[in-house]
């Protein structure tokens, strides 16, 4: 049977890491038994951010860097929606850096898949927040001199309850991580390493493929100190899998209005309550 989430022709370069990621997302949603109208895929702007254009779900293609605020608000509106943000490293960690930090603090039950190719693709090859030191680009002509951001470390430090890394070249593993992230109750970050075949000539498919290794069952992702150490590993070896996981109260559980599990969109009050409010001014 054809996957109900498949629809549209894409504008990505042949060999782009976005292809396996969107394939895995479609498979994940299908295998989780979701229906297209129950899912909202939100994005900002960028190559990865075109994901909602190419998948048959509700789609919110917002502004550059601003996918998280819109996505979390949609979840506040209707908790029955499965809300997923698929967008890039520039969108998530650069333009949207402030939203990244503060939505971890909110812990709204959404999933954030960051397509991390360590480069700006849509604007044709400038350094991204995760670009490695020394990367030469049309702007960083003498090589990138700014420390790359470690999104996993930042997320753990900010208090995220689900922090994982995956690689677009390990599809089965990616699907497994995607499922766990979507099922996690709270904000889940998955930093997905992916090659950019056109603009990142350093961090290629084989560069990642040589380095990534799957975390085994003996790795305790509930131990924060372990997780911090693991999150810092990004050199000859790069761990993929769940780096840190902790159950914590979600925004909906913490918020007095939302904690009754009735979607906000279905709540209403009668006029009498409003009219009573006028009385205190008389």
């Amino acid at each position, binding site marked *: 049977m054809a996957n109900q989430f498949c629809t*549209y022709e894409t504008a990505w370069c042949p060999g782009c890491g976005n292809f396996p990621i969107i394939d895995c997302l479609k498979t994940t949603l299908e295998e989780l038994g979701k229906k297209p*109208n129950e899912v909202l895929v*939100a994005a900002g702007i960028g190559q990865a951010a075109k994901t909602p254009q190419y998948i048959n779900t509700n789609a919110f293609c917002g502004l550059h860097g601003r996918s998280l605020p819109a996505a979390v608000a949609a979840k506040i509106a209707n908790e029955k929606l499965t809300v997923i943000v698929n967008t890039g490293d520039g969108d998530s960690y650069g333009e949207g850096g402030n939203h990244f930090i503060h939505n971890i603090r909110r812990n709204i039950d959404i999933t954030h898949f960051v397509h991390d190719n360590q480069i700006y693709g849509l604007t044709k090859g400038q350094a991204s927040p995760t670009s490695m030191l020394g990367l030469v680009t049309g702007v960083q002509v003498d090589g990138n001199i700014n420390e790359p951001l470690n999104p996993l470390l930042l997320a753990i430090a900010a208090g995220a309850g689900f922090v994982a890394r995956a690689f677009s070249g390990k599809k089965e593993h990616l699907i497994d991580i995607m499922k766990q992230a979507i099922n996690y109750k709270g904000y889940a970050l998955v930093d997905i390493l992916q090659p950019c075949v056109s603009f990142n000539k350093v961090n290629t498919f084989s560069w990642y493929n040589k380095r990534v290794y799957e975390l085994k069952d003996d790795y305790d992702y509930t131990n924060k100190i372990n997780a911090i150490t693991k999150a810092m590993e990004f050199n000859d070896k790069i761990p993929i899998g769940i780096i840190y996981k902790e159950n914590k109260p979600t925004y909906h559980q913490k918020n007095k209005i939302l904690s009754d599990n009735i979607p906000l969109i279905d709540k209403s009050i009668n006029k009498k309550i409003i009219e009573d409010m006028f009385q205190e001014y008389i």
Partner: protein
Amino acid sequence: MYNLLIGGAAGQGIETTAAILEKLLKTSGYNVFSTKDFMSRVRGGHNFSLIRFGTEAIHSHSNVLDGIIALDDNTIALHKDNLKETGFILCDANLKTIDTRAIKIDLNTMAKKLGNPRVSGSISIGAVLKLFGETLQHINTVVPQFIKKELVNINLTAMADGFNCTEKKFAHLDGQYSNYMLISGTKAVALGAIAAGLKFYTAYPMSPSTGIMESIAAKSDKAQIVVEQAEDEIAAINMAIGASYAGLCSMTGTSGGGFSLMVEALGFSGIAEIPLVVIDVQRPGPATGLPTRTEQSDLDFVRSASQGEFPRMVIALRNQEDAFYQTIRAFSLAEKYQLPVILLSDQYLGDSLATIKTFDIKNVTPQKPLTQYNDREKYLRYKYTPSGISPRLVPGKTDQVVIVDSDEHDETGHITESADVRNKMVDKRMKKLKGLYHELLEPDFIGREDFNILLIGWGSTWGALQEAVTILNEQNKEKYAALVFGDIFPLPKKLLQEKVAQAKAIINIEQNATGQLAKLVREEIAITFADSILKYDGRQISGEDIVNEIMRRK
């Protein structure tokens, strides 16, 4: 009509004293109008409230005083020149003033004797009630509205003590306003939003807009509203848009600086056709400007903010009734035409309290997006229609998928670069303005039908213009009228053209330095303004100020 000033340093309790006193006066039957003049500091400096009350309608503050309640010497020094010869200065016995109008009371000693130095404000209230021939009959019902339960009794005693240590000086006047509301512009906006069906309010704190968020938060439990303090204004507006996309009646609010950060998302609401209500409570700019003061200098900005072209609506709030009813209307227009509606308020209107008829919401029915789709055709979020308005479904409420895009898009909502689709989509969006034009409300016309001098203003100078036109017509050989715009962009032109044709001279009166309304009017119709009265010192123009300025320039 009487006019009182309560002044002192920040932290001395002026706000609570004024709030209790003005409510007592309103409860006694007076029409009350009060304003605040506060510095951007938590302690020290000089702050004051003006409370004007009488038996007739009052729409503006006045700087001519019948009484000063001075909590420090500085207040007396700064304001005694505005005090009438027959006026009084109520102050503590320890203040240095030798003004013959001073009524010195041992406020601090009396308060200490009662066991709490902070009740001196209540002693003053008691004394003022006596001075104006009032009774203590309403203090038992009014005081608990403003004072913590455990402190109510001591404050009631303090009021009685103050009442007993002064003599009546002015006559009580019988007013008919005891059943009216006494409410600020800020609170009226909050209640308007709630009445419109608000479910989500998000903002980043910024004076003078924060009071709206606090007022809604105070009612969030009863009204089932989620209030979320955003990490910045960019997040706030994008959250409001995301919630609106998902079907919630949502709103954000800020002042000019925060609005500057929201600008890109304003255009997003425009192209993605997601209903959005934003309130800009103006303060003097640019940049940080004068944070706690007032100005009308964002009109040029908000009517053109954001790149590209898209339909929008700007409504200026003129008074506390507008603040309520126009906020409701903003939600309804935003939903109906699927566009951003910007409400323009300012510090003066937000912080002023006026006496108005109790809000009536019998005819208010919140507009909602569609929750059903039975059409046999494929659902198209951006379907071309004669009105330009496409059916708006929300995600998850039907079996359709809803696709919205900040890129130019086709009818389905998907990204496109087709020249043909681009033209059609721009036309579709702009076509919505045709419907909107029919909904525009003409400006308020004030004054004599047979006028020859026409004053033109907008927003919160409405009250001052009301008063000015009345005084001018009483005093002058010339005949005056005013047009005050609420709906301001797109500019309603019918009444304007009619009245302009009759005017011998036209004067624009605005709280900005460049005459932004005059500029907008001249874009639409060819007229010459004989004069401009422009005020940009951060303090609101009063009716008297307008009269004096017109007389001075004659």
